[in-house]
């Protein structure tokens, strides 16, 4: 049995909410907008909890690096069943290389033998932190995991690929990044939400995980709303559809 699984999580804008640009175009206005646990991190946490329930691991530690308000995400993690929670409080979310640095420090501090986290956060859509963390720790990685089994100190992982899948055997300690099919997050009961409110959260300063203030390496210079609207011209029937395709040379000629 392994001792600790670390499940880093991010808080993101609720995916039901349309991201709005600040009037000066300097960023996204998320003041007062609904926030959720990044869906891929939620899947990752679920996978970690199942390993614990299977008796593969003794405990699951959820961790957040972010502003004070992200404590809410940790409460959700505790309500789902995480045994402990750590919050590294920073004013602004650091860039991925520094998040990876802080998570590496946390993983060592907690004595984690396995890190399971989402393959990407659905706000910045970067999808690079898990790999950077694995590199920092010098651990193997299994990205885009769809199935995970841990046995005798080895993670057997079925990974999504550009075409088909890959089956990897990665020795622990390692970093696994969750894709959609890895697990279906459990429903959290109100009773567990209430209980989670009283569970302790360990608070760490940025310095305790080696984070110093630094200039941004990839500053957001400007954001714009994307225009997705198209003409939306309605066609009367399939004949009209075929005529449209013919006009554009997209219908096989000499047939029909």
């Amino acid at each position, binding site marked *: 049995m392994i001792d600790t699984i670390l499940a880093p999580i991010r808080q993101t804008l609720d995916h039901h909410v349309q991201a709005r640009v600040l009037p000066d175009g300097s960023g996204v206005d998320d003041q007062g907008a609904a926030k959720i646990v990044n869906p891929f991190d939620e899947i990752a946490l679920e996978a970690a909890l199942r390993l614990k329930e299977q008796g593969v691991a003794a405990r699951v530690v959820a961790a957040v690096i972010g502003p004070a308000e992200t404590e809410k995400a940790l409460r959700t993690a505790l309500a789902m069943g995480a045994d402990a929670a750590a919050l590294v409080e920073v004013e602004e979310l650091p860039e991925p290389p520094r998040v990876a640095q802080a998570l590496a420090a946390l993983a060592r501090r907690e004595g984690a033998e396995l890190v399971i986290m989402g393959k*990407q956060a659905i706000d910045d859509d970067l999808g690079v932190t898990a790999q950077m963390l694995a590199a920092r720790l010098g651990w193997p990685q299994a990205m885009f995991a769809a199935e995970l089994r841990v046995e005798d100190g080895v993670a057997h992982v079925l990974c999504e690929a550009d075409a088909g899948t890959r*089956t990897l055997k990665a020795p622990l300690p390692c970093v696994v990044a969750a894709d959609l099919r890895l697990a279906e997050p459990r429903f959290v009961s109100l009773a567990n939400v209430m209980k989670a409110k009283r569970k302790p959260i360990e608070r760490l300063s940025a310095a305790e995980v080696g984070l110093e203030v630094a200039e941004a390496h*990839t500053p957001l210079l400007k*954001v714009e709303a994307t225009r997705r609207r198209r003409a*939306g011209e309605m066609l009367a029937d399939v004949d009209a559809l075929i005529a449209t395709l013919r006009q554009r040379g997209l219908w096989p000629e000499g047939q029909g």
Partner: protein
Amino acid sequence: MDVLVLAARDAPGASGALVDEERTARLVAAARRFSGVVDVLLPAAADDGAARMAADGLAALQGVRRVWLAADARLTGWLAEPLAALLADVVRCEGYARIIGDSSLAHRDVLARLAGLLRAPALTDVVDIIDADTVRRPMYAGDILATVGIRSELAVLLLRAVAFAPAEKIAEEAAVEVVVPEMPGNLPCPVELLEEEAGDSSGRPDLGRARIVLGMGRGAMDTESRALLLQLAEKLGAAVAATRAVVDEGLAPNDWQVGQTGKQIAPALYIAFGISGAHQHLAGIADAETIIAVNTDADAPIFAAADHGLAMDARKALKALLAELGEHVPDE
């Protein structure tokens, strides 16, 4: 600024080639915007005929100075640990300032790890290179287009290859040198690749390259519609995409998923059958030249994001299209 391009990996089993030359040509053309030398690294399991052929193809692309043919059994299957370690070595020795790849899973796996080793930032889904220190990329499921500065000497950029025109081929054979670098003895190989399963495309073209793509949503995933849609795809030589909802139902493999957390495609024509038009799905089809939607609900959001719409039952529309192509379809 000197650039190292990682050759685009061809889907295993797709064509037997090691490299997706067309996609790599797009990366090379984009890399030239940094106005330095452009070298390409091609990983291969061995220095054999196939590897040489692939390397020569890349060496004939306009703007390439050198092709590194990294041939070593430890690079089989592009496992991230040895390949990222090798790339880190090459980058440090040669002093490249930008490392460029595509946004495929294969490149995300390897190149974000490389960024971690180099302590460098990595930006994915780059759709525009404004100058050497400024790029654009979508965020928030493509609802937002961000202009991002690069304030570090070294950076890893993963491009959405379809957003860049390919570099031309200037020769039939290698126009520049192909160099086999000496391989470090201590490449880490902790992970074992037990199996690489190519998935089933039944001879259909690759989603990333197809001229026509047919999209399957919840409104077209019943057994009959699904079969009709696959039949039409075959008739049109089209690739098939699916929404996450259909993938979740287990009615389409994961590698058919198009959208924010799936593939981004840029075909000449995308026809969405029974797809509502969630912004997470639209994120994957924004670059399609023409979008046509077929949906029973005249108020479905997909229509506002489509060039043409047909408010109709997907199954009936598919049958009518097939009938027009002279295909036999069972009557109602």
